[in-house]
């Protein structure tokens, strides 16, 4: 039996990663400034204008309460956009031929593209966190778990975005899932409210929304209070991770919409 060889095309992974990060730096306004301005506007509208008239939620001021949800909202949106565009654009322009003909494994391709997209999203999440701290007093009860949750969620949605980018045949399809599925689920997932505030029937219905578990878990890391069991939140996050990996594995194995 021949010995098992471990090979890793580190130069290849680094080349893709660097390329993707360089693209974000070239479009810094779109990548960073726009999300920060959007989030700041949310603080102005929901935190200052409306929040000042609202009572505290679960013992947390409304302005501070929405911070985890806003970070998650930006994280979902940017992770999806970065990762889906990262792999869709080479498909669209035809430069994907180079990646497909390179001595690089599918796992390495995923690490490079998803790693770059997740890195950008995490950086954005940190910037939004710092921006939020200018508007409202923040406390983070479980900082390490918060960081882990941030990274894991960024990776999850980047994986999901990567799947979208592989699946999409055109620009419209690329926008379809984020606009029609992810954004509504996020807004209905407790980004701006606790699901405990909902009537019982709607609350029960909300529990079918996976985003509820992610936002609740992330908020728990900040304030130690959650809408749903924290283990369920971590379980849901891990489940999403495994599901995305399985779909990507199948796509690369079959070459679906990637290889003839």
């Amino acid at each position, binding site marked *: 039996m021949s010995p098992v060889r471990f*090979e890793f*095309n580190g*130069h*290849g992974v*680094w*080349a*893709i990663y*660097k*390329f993707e990060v*360089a*693209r974000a730096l*070239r479009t810094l306004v779109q990548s960073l400034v726009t999300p920060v301005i959007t989030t700041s506007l949310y603080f102005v509208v929901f935190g200052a204008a409306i929040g000042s008239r609202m009572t505290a939620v679960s013992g947390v001021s409304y302005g501070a309460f929405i911070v985890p949800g806003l970070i998650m909202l930006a994280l979902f949106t940017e992770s999806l956009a970065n990762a889906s565009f990262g792999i869709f654009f080479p498909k669209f*322009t*035809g*430069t994907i*031929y*180079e*990646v*497909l*003909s*390179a*001595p*690089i*494994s599918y796992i390495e391709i995923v690490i490079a593209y998803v790693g770059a997209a997740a890195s950008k999203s995490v950086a954005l999440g940190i910037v939004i966190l710092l921006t939020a701290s200018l508007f409202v007093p923040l406390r983070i009860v479980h900082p390490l778990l918060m960081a882990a949750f941030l990274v894991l969620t960024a990776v999850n949605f980047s994986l999901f975005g990567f799947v979208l980018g592989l699946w999409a045949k055109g620009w419209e399809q690329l926008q379809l899932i984020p606009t029609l599925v992810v954004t509504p689920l996020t807004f209905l997932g407790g980004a701006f409210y606790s699901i405990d505030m909902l009537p019982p029937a709607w609350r029960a219905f909300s529990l079918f929304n996976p985003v509820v578990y992610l936002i609740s878990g992330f908020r728990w890391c900040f304030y130690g209070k959650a809408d749903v069991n924290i283990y369920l939140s971590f379980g849901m996050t891990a489940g999403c991770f495994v599901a995305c990996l399985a779909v990507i594995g199948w796509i690369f194995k079959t*070459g679906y919409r990637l*290889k*003839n």
Partner: protein
Amino acid sequence: MPSIISIQNVSKSYASGVRALEPIDLEIRKGEIFALLGPNGAGKTTLINIVCGIVTASSGRVIADGHDIVRDYRAARTRIGLVPQELTTDSFETVWATVSFSRGLFGRAPNPDYVTGLLRDLSLSAKRDSSIMDLSGGMKRRVMIAKALSHEPDILFLDEPTAGVDVELRRDMWNLVRGLRERGVTIILTTHYIEEAEEMADRVGVINKGSLVLVEEKAALMRKFGKKHLTLHLQSPLTRVPAELAAWRLELKDQGLSLECTFDGGSDVGIPLLLHEVSELSIPIKDLETHQSSLEDIFVSLVSERVPSVRS
């Protein structure tokens, strides 16, 4: 000469049922320039894409420099460079960045000296910091070649390398290809310009409707399938071909003022011998014309003879 690429029983059928390649066997020799000719849709690009890992073969196997392109894809692909037919580049990148990217992607450590030399060889030094979108079509074509050579491959696939480029650049490309061959790079090119294959190739393969119709040394091909055509313009008309010349299968044309004869491409003695015999018969000749069929004539003849429907 040892083989560097071995294509064994490779075929391709798409899910739609389209049969793009019939089972093909082909050996590419180390250090040669191999020209793959064929009409549009013949399967040239499909075959190249299979070898490069972009398309999955339905059957068969390919060995590149001793490495199976599926099981040992890393080692195989490291040795192969591809210049695709389309000018697909990242418009916003600089020349330097995109060539360096390709080198990294193919697992090579950064080597600014090598990339600098490569850009110099391709007359791209002055454009190294230019965005690709600012380059002319010819310059973009050079960038594609620089990307393909960035990881120092032993085998280079050029898919229609001079499509849409001007005559001067085409000559430059030919010189570049010859230079690469001298450095030991094996080159497989597809082209619509038969003149290109005639000018550069050591061997020629003709592919048509997914089948490899023939593989031959270019010189042997010219000898085997090429024809020499001789026309003798006479001073006074003949009423019939003299019986002494019957063995030459001459045709009398132009109201008896021309004698025409076709020789095999490999014949070196036919024309002088015929001229000698005509002279012996005291047939006065005013002028003579010869025409040798080009590779293009041979190609057209091969493709149209074997598959008449190709002519549309």
